[in-house]
């Protein structure tokens, strides 16, 4: 037999590529002639028989031998027309005719599905569409089987080549979750485990993702083997879609996908595709950081364009000091000075708010959070040992980045000519050079009022009849810091919610007023008096008293006699200046730290002045700030 054709086969070979025979005899020819033809070519699987050039069927070598093998078979069939033999064959309607383009493996499946006695009959292939086409040829069943074996071997080799070269990890599991022998080489690399065939999928998982995830993974496999489940409609609950895994001591990110492998309608196996996506996850994280930086930079540009250049310059210088002091606290692990540092951060946050520098304000708020937790730690001997100022480091580092970015943006603007005024560090201060000082103080307070009142839903307006010229330059920075706190305080705590104002018959628009008065004579000669007043609910003395008691402060008791009661109330009012005092129940960006009024008090004190609160329930709250005239003016 010519077996050369086997060497030419490939995994997709068709029956048309197999050796085939097209010998035909007419039904009227003698049986002896069929015998001669079959004897002449021992490979011939049979002949096609025709009548008047129309194909009627096939007499295979097997059928011929069966008939002539009978008693007197040769004597009966050889001398007579082969029609007799043809009519005696068992192959009537069971002829298997397939197109020449049929793949070998499909043809084998069809051939093997024939009745048991006819399995070895030759296969008939047709080049055309019609069965009685003259192009009918016969293929020996044994050739077909040999071709099939060859092709299977080729496919297996191809499969193992694929499995050993693909980057993706492929493996198959059966309904018991046992891993099949065919899996891609990469699986071993990804799991850093050799020879995984025969192991349960969960057991393999458990070593790298832990019990809980492994159990979920196993549960998900059960879901896929559950015939009631719609495969497409469970992909969202794949617990291994992205999973952190510890492999050979390294943290990796793996992605698992699952695909049912159907045999007919039953779910025989589930194919698992596993990929190491560590790099992708890392890149995505890096990208997110980049995007955040870009977003920040854009936000910074807007902040810078909005801010007054002189104020921005002052802010950046103060920020530099705050960062430096913070770094010193961290380096020396100092506990003293934490309170003062806290106040300086809070003050700077106020300035950031005043200048609309949202990013700085947010990060300074975060830094405050850290400081609060440090302060709380120190307040209890049990946790004081755990004092670790390095928790401030990320905030400090971010602030420094923001400050550097701001300076570089300012530089770029200046080079482009967009910023005319001096704005960077080290630029000469305008309060010494320019005659009219900082024209932006009231304007920026107005802006802060607008921003806060919108954010908190309490409409308010800032009024003043005074001019900024009335404020001596050395007082300006101080007033700027103080006004931030007072405005904030008024809008957050003082002004009532709209419904309440309506009920009380007050104008819905809250009023915040500021006035400057010089005292050349009278009770405080040589002093300047600043008054800030809102028309809110006034100080809630009860709440202050209560909160002060909770904090363990000494609280003057309301006296029996009226005059004492008034004195006691005045004393209670002063409690609001205590460090860390707040009646707010939670900390927000706007209130609740209890640092604001403390800061006002400390700042005024520093300049040798004093501050007096005034309040009438339901009507107003005012702060009278009296500062000595600066010597220079």
């Amino acid at each position, binding site marked *: 037999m010519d077996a050369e054709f086997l060497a030419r086969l490939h995994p997709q070979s068709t029956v048309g590529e197999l050796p085939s025979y097209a010998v035909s005899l007419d039904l009227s020819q003698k049986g002896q002639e069929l015998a001669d033809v079959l004897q002449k070519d021992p490979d011939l699987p049979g002949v096609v028989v025709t009548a008047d050039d129309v194909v009627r069927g096939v007499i295979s070598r097997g059928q011929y031998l069966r008939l002539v093998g009978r008693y007197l078979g040769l004597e009966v069939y050889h001398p007579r027309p082969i029609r007799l033999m043809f009519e005696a064959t068992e192959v009537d309607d069971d002829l298997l005719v397939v197109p020449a383009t049929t793949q070998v493996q499909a043809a084998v499946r069809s051939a093997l599905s024939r009745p048991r006695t006819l399995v070895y009959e030759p296969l008939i292939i047709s080049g055309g569409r019609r069965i009685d086409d003259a192009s009918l040829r016969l293929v020996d069943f044994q050739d077909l089987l040999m071709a099939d074996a060859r092709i299977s071997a080729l496919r297996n080799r191809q499969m193992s080549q694929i499995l050993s070269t693909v980057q993706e990890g492929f493996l198959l599991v059966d309904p018991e979750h046992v891993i099949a022998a065919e899996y891609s080489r990469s699986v071993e690399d990804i799991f850093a485990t050799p020879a995984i065939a025969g192991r349960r999928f969960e057991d393999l998982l458990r070593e790298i993702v832990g019990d809980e995830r492994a159990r979920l993974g196993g549960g*998900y496999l059960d879901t896929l083997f559950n015939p009631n489940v*719609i495969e*497409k*409609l*469970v992909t*969202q*609950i794949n617990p291994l879609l992205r999973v952190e895994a510890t492999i050979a001591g390294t943290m990796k990110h793996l992605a698992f996908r699952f695909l049912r492998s159907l045999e007919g309608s039953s779910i025989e196996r589930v194919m698992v595709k596993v990929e190491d996506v560590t790099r992708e996850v890392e890149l995505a994280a890096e990208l997110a950081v980049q995007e955040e930086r870009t977003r920040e930079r854009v936000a910074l540009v807007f902040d810078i364009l909005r801010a007054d250049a002189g104020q921005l310059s002052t802010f950046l210088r103060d920020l530099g000091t705050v960062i430096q002091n913070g770094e010193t606290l961290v380096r020396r692990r100092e506990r003293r000075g934490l309170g003062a540092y806290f106040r300086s951060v809070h003050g700077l946050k106020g300035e950031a708010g005043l200048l609309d520098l949202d990013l700085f304000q947010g990060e300074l708020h975060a830094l405050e959070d850290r400081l609060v937790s440090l302060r709380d730690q120190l307040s209890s001997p049990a946790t004081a040992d755990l004092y670790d100022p390095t928790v401030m480091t990320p905030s400090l580092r971010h602030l420094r980045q923001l400050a550097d970015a701001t300076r570089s943006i300012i530089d770029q603007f200046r080079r482009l000519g967009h910023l005319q005024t001096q704005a960077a560090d080290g630029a000469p201060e305008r309060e010494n050079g320019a005659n009219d000082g900082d024209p932006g103080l009231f304007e920026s307070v107005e802006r802060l009022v607008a921003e806060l009142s919108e954010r908190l839903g309490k409409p308010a307006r800032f009024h003043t009849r005074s001019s900024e010229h009335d404020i001596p330059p050395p007082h300006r920075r101080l007033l700027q810091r103080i006004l931030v706190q007072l405005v904030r305080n008024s809008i957050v705590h003082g002004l009532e919610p709209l419904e309440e104002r309506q009920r009380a018959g007050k104008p819905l628009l809250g009023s915040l007023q500021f006035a400057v008065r010089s005292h050349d004579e009278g009770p405080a000669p040589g002093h300047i008096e600043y008054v800030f007043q809102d028309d809110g609910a006034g100080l809630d003395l009860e709440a202050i008293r209560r909160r002060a008691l909770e904090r363990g402060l000494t609280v003057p008791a309301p006296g029996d006699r009226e005059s004492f009661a008034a004195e006691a109330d005045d004393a209670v009012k002063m409690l609001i200046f205590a460090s860390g005092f707040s009646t707010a129940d939670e900390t927000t960006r706007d209130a609740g730290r209890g640092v604001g009024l403390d800061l006002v008090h400390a700042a005024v004190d520093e300049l040798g002045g004093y501050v007096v609160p005034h309040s009438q329930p339901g009507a107003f709250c005012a702060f009278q700030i009296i500062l000595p005239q600066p010597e220079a003016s």
Partner: protein
Amino acid sequence: MKLLIVDDSLIVRNAIERSISQGQITGVLRAEDGARAVALYREHRPELVTMDLTMPHLDGLGAITAIREIEPNASILVISALNSHAMALEAIARGACGFLTKPFTEREVAEALDDLVEHAHG
């Protein structure tokens, strides 16, 4: 075919109902908790069910179990926030055919309902 929408949120019930593009769904029933869902199921035997998991008066898991006891071939699609993988797998183990996570788009619901209709036919 009839569809029973089970969710304690009116907004979600409306959104699911709005997403129906299936010509084969001819009737819609609505329930705001598991107990009511089981009662409606017993009475009307809808072929399709969408089921929330966290609800008052018998949660989704309990309702799935009860409905599958009434009709072992009920086609139930869970539409719920994926709070826990374990709970999602439990819902499937109790007899849900699929799981769509909230928040969803109307298109996602429409496609899932198509799959559910096909599954109910098969």
